[in-house]
């Protein structure tokens, strides 16, 4: 049974208010807390000695979901978990991951999730991953996710990565390889406070003709936090790639955006856009002229920006 804190972490990272429908695997403090499989979705503990699970989704599975939230509520846990998703052809599924760390102790808590996705022909996958941290201990909350995506022809992957609160240090690495007519869309939303640091590295290889990607990051850096956004798009075929980094910088924060476009085919069309700046003065003025205080106006602008 999950306790109250663990339940609340689940709500934060996976919008779960109880046991989810469909397939799920809930991992709490390094142990399997609950699992459910369905006729089409199998979840099995890895047998190769590594910690983690294999998720196998049968070809043709539509409108099903898999939840694999992770909760750390004991201080001082450090784990690296390997989860592999094998998505058959012609599927249409939603995968919800996410990690919540509640650290009241003095030792660091760290979860490094290595997720690999093998997405079959013409399948659609929506992947949502939320990070959340809380607890007033001195121990740091650390998350270093690695995501690898291998997309077969005609597949479509939509990833939503959210980290708004409470994670002290994170380094996210996402690598993808796309075959013909495959598409990957990434929406990342990030906010850092205090002396937190967050790095996001994307490397998308557009290998098949007609493949495309759109990597969009919106972030807010407050206090003396640091963010680095690196997006590399490699065009190996007739393809189109677009990366966009839009950051609001506040206080004494530091934000760096490092674009890399690498075209190896004359029909590769690659675009990178990056904008870093403070909250626009006219936005604050407009909302203040509606009766909001400066702080309220700021909150609305940031809330909208990260929506």
């Amino acid at each position: 049974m999950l306790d109250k804190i663990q339940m609340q972490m689940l709500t934060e990272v996976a919008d779960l208010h109880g046991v989810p429908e469909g397939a799920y695997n809930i991992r709490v403090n390094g142990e399997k807390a609950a699992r459910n499989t369905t006729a089409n979705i199998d979840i099995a503990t890895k047998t190769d000695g590594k910690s983690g699970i294999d998720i196998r989704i049968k070809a043709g599975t539509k409108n099903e979901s898999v939840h694999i939230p992770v909760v750390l509520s004991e201080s001082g846990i450090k784990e690296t978990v390997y989860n592999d998703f094998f998505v058959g052809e012609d599927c249409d599924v939603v995968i919800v991951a996410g990690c919540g760390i509640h650290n009241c102790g003095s030792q660091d808590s760290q979860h490094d999730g290595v997720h690999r996705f093998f997405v079959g022909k013409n399948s659609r996958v929506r992947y949502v991953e939320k990070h959340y941290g809380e607890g007033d201990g001195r121990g740091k909350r650390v998350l270093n996710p690695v995501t690898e995506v291998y997309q077969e022809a005609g597949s479509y992957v939509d990833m939503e990565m959210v980290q708004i609160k409470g994670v002290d240090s994170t380094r996210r690495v996402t690598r993808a390889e796309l075959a013909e007519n495959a598409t990957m869309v990434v929406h990342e939303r990030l906010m850092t406070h205090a002396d937190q640091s967050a790095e996001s590295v994307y490397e998308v290889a557009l290998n098949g003709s007609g493949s495309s990607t759109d990597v969009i990051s919106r972030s807010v850096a407050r206090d003396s936090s640091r963010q680095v956004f690196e997006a590399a798009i490699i065009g190996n075929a007739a393809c189109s790639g677009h990366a966009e980094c839009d950051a609001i910088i506040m206080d004494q924060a530091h934000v760096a955006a490092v674009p890399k476009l690498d075209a190896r085919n004359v029909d590769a069309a690659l675009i990178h856009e990056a904008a870093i700046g403070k909250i626009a003065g006219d936005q604050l003025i407009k909302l203040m002229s509606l009766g909001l205080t400066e702080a309220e106006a700021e909150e609305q602008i940031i809330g909208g920006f990260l929506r």
Partner: protein
Amino acid sequence: MLELKNVTYTVTEDKGSKNIIDHLDLVIPDGKFVVITGPNGGGKSTLAKIIMGINPVSDGQLLFDDRDITAANITQRAQMGISFAFQQPVHFKGIKVIDLLRLATGVNLSVGKACEYLSLVGLCAKEYIQREVNASLSGGELKRIEIATVLARGTKFSIFDEPEAGIDIWSFQNLIQVFENIRKTVQGTVLIISHQERILNIADEIVVIENGRVAKQGPRDELLPELLGTASAVNAGCSRLTPEKGAVKC
């Protein structure tokens, strides 16, 4: 009543300093519909921003209902009942039209009520209510949403800076009706900066601002005939070309 006493707004440039608003005196009585006109660059928008508290005065005093508001900030003036529709509407990433109307009214406005405000400015409400207030909207659409936020606030003193700018002539017909009915909608004092004869026509009073000063002020019937012969109202002739019908309604 709004009173500006000897108000000056100075900017420093390479060549020295310049009074954009230059020792200006102006009284706007309660419940009046006042139109400010005058040549481009005369200082009209600057004056509106001074009233809203966006531009701090370099010298002089502002009184609102006999209260000295010279030191009051934008928020305080907004809360006292001053509203301002910008000449150039602001874009917001992620903030929707309904959010902006809710912030304007300060309540969790129902979708139905929000739609009413949008319909007032001639927008087909259902298509717009969930749209983001960003560059995906046209200039005319943003402008009408901007006007709607001020109508929605319904405060006792509303300022509109060139509401006609960027709005096509068909929608303009609707907009004129909005301003003709505005005394019922907002029940307060209305200050409009405009070059349009149709708007000057519905004014109680007209103020001409030139070189940061009040060049002329008086009742419409006295000032309008005189203005129509001058450069201040060059645009006015255009309004005669607008079709009488044809305003698109949803």
